[in-house]
């Protein structure tokens, strides 16, 4: 077992998959010479050469379209989009191209590409570099969307994503890259897409969280424990497909649910979680599902302001208490 940084775990996953399969290639802005602005692709240009590790111009729209079509024609592209805030530029290629081809072309094509990006706040990056925007991609049929939190999941899901025959949007978070965790490098470590992870079991309330919010949910569970409340924390890991079985099982135990997502509230990913729970576990619920999200406004820059809008352990704990009240 090695104690690795999240960014290192991703780097290892890329190296492993590129070594295993020569059709895997990386492209994106500043991923080559510099090794990526978050250093996820460090050393890979030297190891695999500039055909398979390509620095690109700032052209997200065409790059994403190229990932889709390259994936249809024999390669397995891994595209890095530097900030999730730029996903709108990728969206036509995702919703009007990647989403439809396999179905409308009667399963005669597949698109095994991975789009890696990172979103989220807390770094003072301002209104254009701090958003989650995960719901924009989670809405699209034909895409899979994962958001690992631990280094082991980062490695395992990235490897699974690269091997998957269908598109995967791989969501990282700028505050996760330096977090450390155990990774078993002696095993393949593949993590199946579509399976949630129970971070900690509990009996009073279920907290379902995505991406970096899982860390905050864990802290909230500690706060709640002090008040004698036993929270079950579930890391959804896969936003699409969603592990409905895990959600139902947890609510069957606790009868109370809090959903936590770093995107905006209105029409955000947390809305789907709330609606899904209503659809499938209404009778088990003793109180309405509580949503903990960003408020519906732009993300401000200054520390005091940004801290006020971001979800955190206190807000999650308060929501849990509210649903139990």
């Amino acid at each position: 077992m090695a104690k690795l940084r999240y960014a290192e775990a991703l780097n290892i996953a890329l190296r492993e998959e590129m070594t295993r399969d020569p059709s895997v290639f990386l492209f994106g802005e500043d991923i080559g010479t510099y090794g990526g602005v978050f250093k996820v692709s460090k050393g890979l240009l030297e190891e695999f050469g500039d055909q398979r590790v390509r620095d690109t111009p700032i052209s997200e729209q065409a790059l994403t379209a190229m990932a889709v079509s390259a994936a249809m024609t024999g390669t397995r592209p891994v595209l890095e989009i530097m900030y999730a805030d730029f996903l709108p530029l990728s969206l036509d290629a995702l919703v009007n191209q990647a989403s439809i081809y396999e179905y409308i072309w009667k399963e005669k094509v597949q698109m095994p590409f991975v789009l890696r990006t990172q979103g989220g706040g807390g770094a003072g990056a301002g209104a254009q570099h701090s958003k989650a925007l995960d719901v924009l991609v989670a809405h699209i049929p034909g895409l899979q969307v994962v958001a690992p939190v631990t280094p082991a999941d980062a490695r395992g899901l990235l490897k699974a994503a690269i091997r998957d025959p269908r598109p995967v949007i791989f969501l990282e978070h700028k505050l996760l890259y330096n977090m450390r965790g155990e990774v078993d490098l002696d095993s393949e470590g593949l993590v199946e897409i579509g399976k949630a992870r129970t971070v900690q079991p509990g009996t009073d309330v279920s907290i379902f969280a995505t991406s970096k919010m899982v860390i905050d949910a864990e802290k909230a569970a500690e706060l709640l424990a002090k008040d004698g409340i036993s929270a079950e924390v579930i890391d959804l890991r896969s936003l699409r497909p969603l592990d409905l079985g895990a959600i139902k099982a947890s609510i069957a135990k606790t009868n109370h649910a809090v959903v936590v997502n770093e995107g905006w509230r209105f029409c955000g990913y947390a809305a789907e979680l709330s609606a899904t729970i209503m659809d499938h576990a209404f009778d088990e619920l003793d109180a309405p599902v509580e949503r903990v999200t960003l408020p519906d406004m732009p993300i401000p820059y200054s520390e005091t302001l940004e801290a006020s809008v971001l979800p955190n352990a206190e807000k999650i704990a308060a929501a849990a208490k509210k649903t139990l009240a």
Partner: protein
Amino acid sequence: MKNAPSIDDQVEMYRKMIACRRVEEAFGTLSKEGRTRGPIHRCDGQEAVGIGATAMLTDEDYITSTHRGHAHYIGKGVDIYGISAEILGRKTGLCGGRAGHMLIADPAKGMIGGNAIVGAGIPAATGMALSNQILKNGRVAMTLFGDGSSQTGIWHESMNMAALWKLPVVFVLEHNEYGLTVHSDRQGSTKDISERAASYGIPTEIVDGNDALAVYRAVSTMVERARRGEGPGFVECKTYRWEGFSTSDMGGYQDPEVIAEWKKRDPIKIAYDQLVGEVGAEKLDQIERDTSADVRDAIERALADPLPEFEICNYTAPYSGEVH
């Protein structure tokens, strides 16, 4: 002559142009009779571009097309019965009726595919060329696109990357003077769009888009360069749209006199004149009769085919495990 097609190739191009023309006419009529679903984007008068530009490609090479792709499909060797059944939304269509008149593809023929997001075929072919370069498979990707689509941002992003990385992609501009209803003079600031491509360092050529032979020659030079690893090429084919944007076009903005002038330069007539000395009128007329009958049969067969039955798509479902 360098890069000239053989006489057999030229005859085959002639046959395909006839086939395409019959398809356009037939669907024009069917549409008027209310027997198609949605409008048809006819390419009568532009057949020389799609057919001349694709004639030197193999099934291994890729093309991407547009909403106005009939000549591209036929040029790339896609079966007319399958195309027609798809346009008619039949179960027997190339895509089982799922794709429809603007989005047809035939991966087995390297035609992937029609695209109704204007401009989207351009980065698509560029990405295929990127695959080809990485796999070193000697394949070429080609994209056929319109003057209107040349004003999209992805055109620029694609030109730049193709030139920068010397990708094996050939850009074929089918300049028919209109993007929907607005003349190209009021959509773009540059008369010859290939001038812009040249500013990226891409070799360009402007040709008479109604002369399949001229299209073939210019494009095959670019295809050969691309195949040799020398990078992209750009051919601007000047042609004209005879039949309005689509069968739902209410018209009123194209000058009938200009249309009449262009009709005098019918690409089929030009091809006929180029060939008749070599192969004789009889053979060409026979080809016309046979091909017309083939197309008529194919479309009639398609018309008699059943519509598909609906099945839910499981692999796009949002829940994993038990629920689909």
